[in-house]
């Protein structure tokens, strides 16, 4: 057996985006020894791509805002499938987390009176997103990164975790390999925080980078943790559609927040057609009112005008664009036109600088002169590891999760801006949860040598094979399968077909052959990541098959309506021997005082949480 490099920490944090850094900082501040392990270089995680802003009811621009409204918007956006307690904690704590970022040195754009400026975003009643132009995520990750390195975190960069180990059901550590050398590392620890982000690379058209292969969800699933809401995958309405190399690349919702107008090939401003009746009253009635709203935004003043229809929730806008294209009203490259060119060029460049450069350099389009072409792109996983709202604890002792890898806050659909706030609110809580757990545990659990040896053999197996295909072909086939059969609109037949294909692909993935050495070998890395992508793809497909309704980001052509009974359950995925089990579990019931928020607003301004008011269902605690 190869001699292993080994490290021992109280807490291992897997993933170094916003949630991972915030979790590591918290656990370290509580006196724990923390190892932060990430697949890429520090500071390159997907948080860096977040553009629009971080949602927090600071009420700097719209004084009417408060945590209750943010809570209501989040629940409504999530079709009331959110865990109410997570939505409450999130809305209450986000303002403090934003102020904390500022205290760590982040420099947000300012209001005329010198405070943090906030912008409008889809589904948010008030202007709520603190931002730095269109590079909010970069500001956030750099701030946390610099805070973290001065806190004394041990950072293991370009190091991939392949498996978690347990001892008597408790987390005991993990096996990893250094990407640079291919050598193995054993991490012994008391607690693990999974903050690995999403699953987008299972799809071809995606805004996600190579890292987003569902590692955290699959690692947790393998040690017995529950995954919920996996059928809810967000297709961001505006990805680039041309040229082919950048297909799926994100076009920030900030474009629409700054006045971007969606039109089809016939020039029709189509979003009015797609507003859900229950929420139509929240949006401008016509072009004139939308323009008055925009003028007020530009001039930084209050208005009674309602927001433009383009600021509907992401699930709705994505379906609208998809439908326009499908029905033959798409732009030349199969998208919709998103126009900000009618605004002054200087303002566009100031408020959306990276969009300006992205289109200019990659698509030869000057967005101050010409509309963009956009279409839906796989963007964000609402589902993931089931966690306790207060501590981030998963259903396996010693395992914690936060951010995109966890589930509950966003329900059936996430509002833009609620992800960056999710990272810092629940990253902090999961870090604290893991630190408290680790400190209460007297000794570090034991990892059996044979478990380590079995895993290393498995990881190295692709080098041993004398025949077999390259993992790239299998990956491509997986992406085609998920794009085609488990996309924005789903039907039972497609989903069943996908399950069949996934079985074949699992076998193909088990048989891949890797050439070359263990040193920085992307083919080998992909072979490992494929296993995780296949696990989460199966979870998405099985949960989607079981949810025979259309809710939030999950749209079933064969079940177009809401089913109130399904509004009272989460689909829960667990490992049952070698098979994947999916079953509904009851959604925790919202307490009366929070329900009252919706009842009070129901008289004409807000949709009542009909689907979220289970009269009899037992309020199963989520963890």
């Amino acid at each position: 057996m190869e001699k292993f490099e080994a490290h021992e920490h109280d807490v291992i944090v897997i993933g170094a985006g916003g949630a991972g850094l915030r979790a590591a900082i918290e656990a370290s501040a509580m006196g724990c020894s923390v190892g932060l392990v990430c697949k890429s270089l520090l500071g390159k995680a997907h948080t860096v791509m977040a553009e629009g802003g971080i949602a927090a009811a600071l009420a700097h621009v719209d004084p009417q805002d408060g945590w209750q409204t943010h809570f209501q918007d989040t629940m409504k956006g999530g079709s009331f499938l959110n865990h109410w307690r997570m939505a409450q904690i999130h809305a209450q704590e986000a303002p403090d987390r934003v102020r904390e970022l500022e205290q760590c040195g982040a420099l947000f754009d300012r209001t005329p009176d010198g405070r943090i400026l906030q912008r409008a975003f889809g589904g948010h009643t008030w202007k709520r997103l603190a931002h730095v132009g269109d590079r909010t995520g970069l500001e956030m990750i750099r701030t946390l990164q610099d805070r973290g390195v001065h806190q004394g975190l041990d950072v293991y960069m370009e190091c991939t975790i392949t498996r978690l180990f347990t001892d008597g059901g408790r987390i005991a550590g993990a096996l990893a390999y250094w990407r640079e050398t291919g050598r193995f590392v054993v991490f012994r620890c008391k607690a693990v925080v999974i903050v690995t982000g999403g699953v987008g690379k299972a799809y071809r058209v995606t805004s996600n980078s190579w890292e987003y292969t569902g590692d955290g969800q699959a690692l947790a699933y393998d040690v017995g943790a529950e995954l919920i809401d996996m059928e809810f995958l967000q297709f961001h309405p505006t990805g680039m559609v041309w040229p082919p190399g950048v297909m799926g690349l994100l076009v920030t919702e900030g474009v629409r927040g700054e006045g971007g107008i969606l039109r089809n090939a016939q020039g029709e401003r189509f979003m009015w057609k797609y507003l859900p009746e229950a929420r139509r009253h929240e949006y401008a009635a016509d072009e004139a009112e939308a323009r008055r709203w925009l003028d007020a935004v530009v001039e930084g003043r209050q208005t009674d005008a309602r927001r433009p229809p383009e600021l509907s929730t992401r699930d709705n806008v994505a379906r609208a664009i998809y439908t326009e294209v499908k029905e033959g009203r798409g732009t030349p490259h199969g998208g919709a036109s998103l126009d900000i060119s009618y605004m002054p060029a200087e303002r566009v460049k100031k408020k959306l600088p990276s969009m300006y450069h992205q289109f200019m350099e990659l698509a030869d389009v000057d967005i101050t002169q010409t509309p963009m072409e956009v279409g839906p792109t796989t963007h964000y996983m609402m589902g993931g590891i089931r966690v306790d709202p207060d501590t981030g604890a998963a259903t396996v002792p010693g395992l914690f999760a936060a951010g995109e890898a966890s589930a509950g806050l966003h329900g059936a659909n996430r509002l833009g801006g609620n992800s960056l706030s999710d990272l810092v609110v629940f990253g902090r809580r999961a870090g604290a949860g893991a630190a408290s757990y680790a400190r209460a545990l007297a000794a570090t659990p034991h990892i059996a040598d044979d478990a380590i040896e079995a895993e290393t053999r498995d990881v190295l197996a692709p080098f041993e094979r004398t025949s077999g295909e390259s993992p790239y072909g299998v990956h491509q086939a997986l992406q085609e399968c998920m794009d085609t059969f488990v996309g924005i609109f789903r039907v039972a037949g497609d989903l069943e077909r996908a399950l069949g294909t996934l079985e074949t692909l699992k076998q193909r993935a088990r048989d891949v052959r890797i050439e070359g050495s263990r040193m920085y070998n992307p083919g080998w890395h992909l072979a490992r990541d494929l296993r995780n992508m296949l696990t989460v793809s199966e979870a998405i497909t099985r949960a989607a098959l079981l949810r025979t309704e259309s809710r939030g980001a999950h749209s079933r052509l064969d079940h177009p309506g809401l089913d109130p009974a399904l509004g009272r359950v989460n689909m829960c995925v667990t490992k049952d021997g070698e098979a994947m089990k999916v079953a509904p579990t009851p959604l925790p019931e919202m307490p009366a005082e929070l329900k009252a928020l919706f009842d009070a607003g129901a008289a004409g301004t807000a949709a009542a949480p009909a689907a979220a008011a289970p009269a009899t269902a037992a309020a199963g605690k989520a963890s």
Partner: protein
Amino acid sequence: MNAGATGREVVLRVYRGDANGGEEVAYTVPVETGMVVLDAIHWIQAHRAPDLAVRWNCKAAKCGSCSAEVNGKPALMCKSRLDHFPEGQPITVRPMKTFPIVRDLVTDVKWNYEINKRIAPFQPRANAEWRWQQSDIDRVQEFRKCIECFLCQDVCHVLRSHELKHQFAGPRFLVRIAGLEMHPIDGADRVPFLKDTAGIGLCNITKCCTEVCPEGITITDNAIIPLKERVVDRYYDPVQRVWRAITGAKDGT
């Protein structure tokens, strides 16, 4: 044939090797409309060389991972359009020269992270008011656009030709220090560090860093020169030295 196919081909000469040596290997790649060098590298990985080592993440010039030297020029591969190179001629892709090679296009950039750790972090002044105007931070927000691609470090002759990594922090970290020093309420003193550890005097303002910055940060004029002035004011201005001796003021202000 897919929608973006052009029917054209391009030859990429990609450096394959490690610390023990290597060579450029030629790959012929079918060209799609709008294709960038990173797309071509991915095509090679998927069809010709699954073990071709390359770093990348966002593919949108926001993460700064895919730095390399394309036709001899430091650049992000995700922003290097194939149709911007002369048609019919091969395009060479090599790793950044300033950093030790790991394998193929991947270099060991850990040194940068070590330097970063030594910079005094943001430290708000006591009793500072947390209010400031947008105009107060326009300048410093420019520095905070840095995506840490390290292309400025790669091109800087102090690091690249003279190999003075032990004496000079490089443009990236002078930009970072500028971002901290010009924060409206930061109160830490980094001037001695700039002079003695970061070695700011070694920069002789050839502006190569500014030229390669994919974020368009005016590194030399807006970050380095003002910092040089702070060092000069502190250590070399006789009037200010006398003033400080009398008043005890930090920067003669």
